[in-house]
């Protein structure tokens, strides 16, 4: 009798427990998590940068959750591999929106991929914060009310580097670009910055993407005796062209300038090839000496990643997710329209000093660091650049909203 009774009670308790405890838990899990989709190219040539972006984005998520989330609602990052392919990125974005029901999307690491994600997200009214460079994404017709751009634009980057280089190293310039969107947009930016300074363009040369031999171009450049050689190419092209220019002895007479010096490329290529090359960057961990927010961010990264330091593009992963969550906190809601309104004009200091989201095109107004690669006096293995100058955050340095087609 008592035996049967115990069995009955325990069964009943079990049922009660499952219905009372489990059911609301399921409902709560579905409703309350703030999901942020994060498509980045984990496989492919930018895999190193993409993995760092994920590591940094997770720090932003952890920060938000430790601070109590949005009234107890936690944030969650859904990472997807876009394989550096716009078609795959569009498919993954559809999956994130339709299947995983994300509230927001941040990510991407190429111009075409971010435009693909943006196109899918804007059609469905989902907020997207891009963390890679593009001029088009903040201009019409690609831009939409739900499009945000955390990264710098090529126009801003090239302008900042150009103003510094033309002032300090001379006005006689040779341009050498990889013949595709990145090279073309960067050179346009250099020319726009150089025109009022009266630069003299000795030659404007192009090479196909993926060139391995620059020996036909370099003697010609050498004979022109420019003050500055602007190399608007990226990744492996940049490594090879700089190395060959060094071997030709071009550095004796000419300053080599690149719009972007990647921290990860510099680590991979070694000190000698990049010695003395000038470039721009959105972030370098070394600014922590006089930027408290950078110090705080670096420390969190070090703690989570075996004392390493964050890379430039990696840090953008942190900033991209953090801006969205700052918008969520400010709006007190995850409703897209409210978060958009909260992010417009948002002033913040996430990791690199003061930034502001320009209301008219949702571009993050931010500083650009002019850095020089060094091979001597390195404090540790991560100490690879000197920060020569900081081009302060100023909306004047961006393309005007009118030029971008905004009313």
């Amino acid at each position, binding site marked *: 009798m008592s035996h049967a009774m115990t069995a009955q009670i325990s069964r009943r308790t079990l049922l009660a427990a499952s219905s009372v405890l489990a059911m609301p838990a399921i409902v709560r899990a579905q409703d309350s998590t703030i999901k942020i989709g994060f498509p980045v190219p984990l496989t492919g040539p930018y895999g190193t940068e993409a993995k760092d972006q994920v590591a940094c984005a997770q720090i932003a998520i952890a920060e938000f959750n430790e601070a109590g989330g949005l009234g107890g609602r936690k944030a969650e990052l859904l990472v997807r591999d876009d394989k550096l392919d*716009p*078609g795959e990125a569009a498919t993954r974005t*559809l999956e994130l929106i339709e*299947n995983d029901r994300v509230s927001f999307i941040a990510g991407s690491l190429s111009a075409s991929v971010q*435009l693909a994600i943006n*196109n*899918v997200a804007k059609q469905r009214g989902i907020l997207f914060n891009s963390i890679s460079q593009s001029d088009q994404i903040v201009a019409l017709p690609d831009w939409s009310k739900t499009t945000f751009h955390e990264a710098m634009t090529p126009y801003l980057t090239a302008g900042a580097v150009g103003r510094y280089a033309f002032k300090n190293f001379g006005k006689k310039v040779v341009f050498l670009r990889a013949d595709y969107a990145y090279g073309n947009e960067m050179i346009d930016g250099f020319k726009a910055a150089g025109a009022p300074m009266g630069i003299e363009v000795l030659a404007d040369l192009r090479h196909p993407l993926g060139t391995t031999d620059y020996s036909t171009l370099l003697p010609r450049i050498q004979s022109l005796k420019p003050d500055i050689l602007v190399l608007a190419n990226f990744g492996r092209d940049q490594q090879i062209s700089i190395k060959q220019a060094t071997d030709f002895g071009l550095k004796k007479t000419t300053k080599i300038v690149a719009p972007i010096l990647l921290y990860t490329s510099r680590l991979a290529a070694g000190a000698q090839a990049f010695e003395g090359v000038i470039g721009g960057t959105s972030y370098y961990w070394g600014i922590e000496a006089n930027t408290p927010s950078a110090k705080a961010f670096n420390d969190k990264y070090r703690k989570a990643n075996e004392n390493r330091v964050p890379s430039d593009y990696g840090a953008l992963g942190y900033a991209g997710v953090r801006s969205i969550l700052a918008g969520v906190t400010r709006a007190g809601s995850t409703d897209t329209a409210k978060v958009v309104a909260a992010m417009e004009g948002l002033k913040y200091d996430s990791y690199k000093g003061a930034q502001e989201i320009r209301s008219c095109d949702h571009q993050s107004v931010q500083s650009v660091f002019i850095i020089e690669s060094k091979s001597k006096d390195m404090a540790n293995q991560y100490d690879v650049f000197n920060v020569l100058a900081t081009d302060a955050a100023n909306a004047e340095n961006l393309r005007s909203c009118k030029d971008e087609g905004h009313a």
Partner: protein
Amino acid sequence: MLPPNFVATCKRHRVVLSIAFLIVFPLLMPFKAIAVNILIYGLFALGFNLMFGTLGLLSFGHAALFGAGAYACGIAIVHFGAPWWAGILGGTLGGMAIAALIGALAIRTRGIYFAMVTLALSQCVYFLAYQATAWTGGENGLRGVELSRIAAFGHSINFVDPLTRYYVVAFFVALALFILSRILASPFGAVLEAVRENEARARACGYDVRATRFMAFVISGGFCGLAGALQALHLSIVPIETLYYQTSGLVVMMALLGGMGTFFGPFVGAGVFLLLENLVSLWTVHWQLFVGAAFVACVLFFPRGIWGTLLMGRAK
């Protein structure tokens, strides 16, 4: 036990069975967008298989036909504000037009030469699209192929809804399957196989081999162009990668994986490949290793492709 004429019945009603499968298919997939992708690549592989499996000519330039369809549809909608049906029609015709152009130049060659000439010509199309930035968006791809609602016969349906989008695409795929089935069952289909089996004998029987090949290439272009147009509408963009030679390689792989020369094999190949790629890449960044190993295993254990080997087993 299955009735003895079960396989024969299935073969006779292959279109009906395929359509029945298409209807339940999205319920079996992890998410709808991948189901649509499988249909689109399946259709693309189907068009390719007409050349490769049925006619016996290996083309390495089918990306040009697929991409031409996608760009024709995209450009019609973005630059000319064309309605959705005109985009699909334009894509199909665009695929056929590029196929006619490439076919006219490539069809006189055979074997490895045919593969090389089609590859070279498709790369020409790629660089043409790459340079014509004003029309194609160049390296950034064509954006803004946004289709939110489809109006037909007085009804307006929501194309943004994932399941609706799937069934709209499935409708066109089913239509293509029906047309292909009729083509293969026609005397023209028999001529295609005759040319594949013995070119000299087909010629001796009085068939114009070159014209047959040209016709087949243009029809193949129609199917691939339709697939491209559907992809443009599905993804709302046309990436330049659509025209790249890797896309040509992808469709060869899908057709081989599924089973060349089988009716439904291309869909099986596209499905297995895309599912593997998507599911494995969710839990490891080394997905290429596993997908590669799976491909090697398929080649070793299913020499006639997955579907082809299954059919062989049934026939015994």
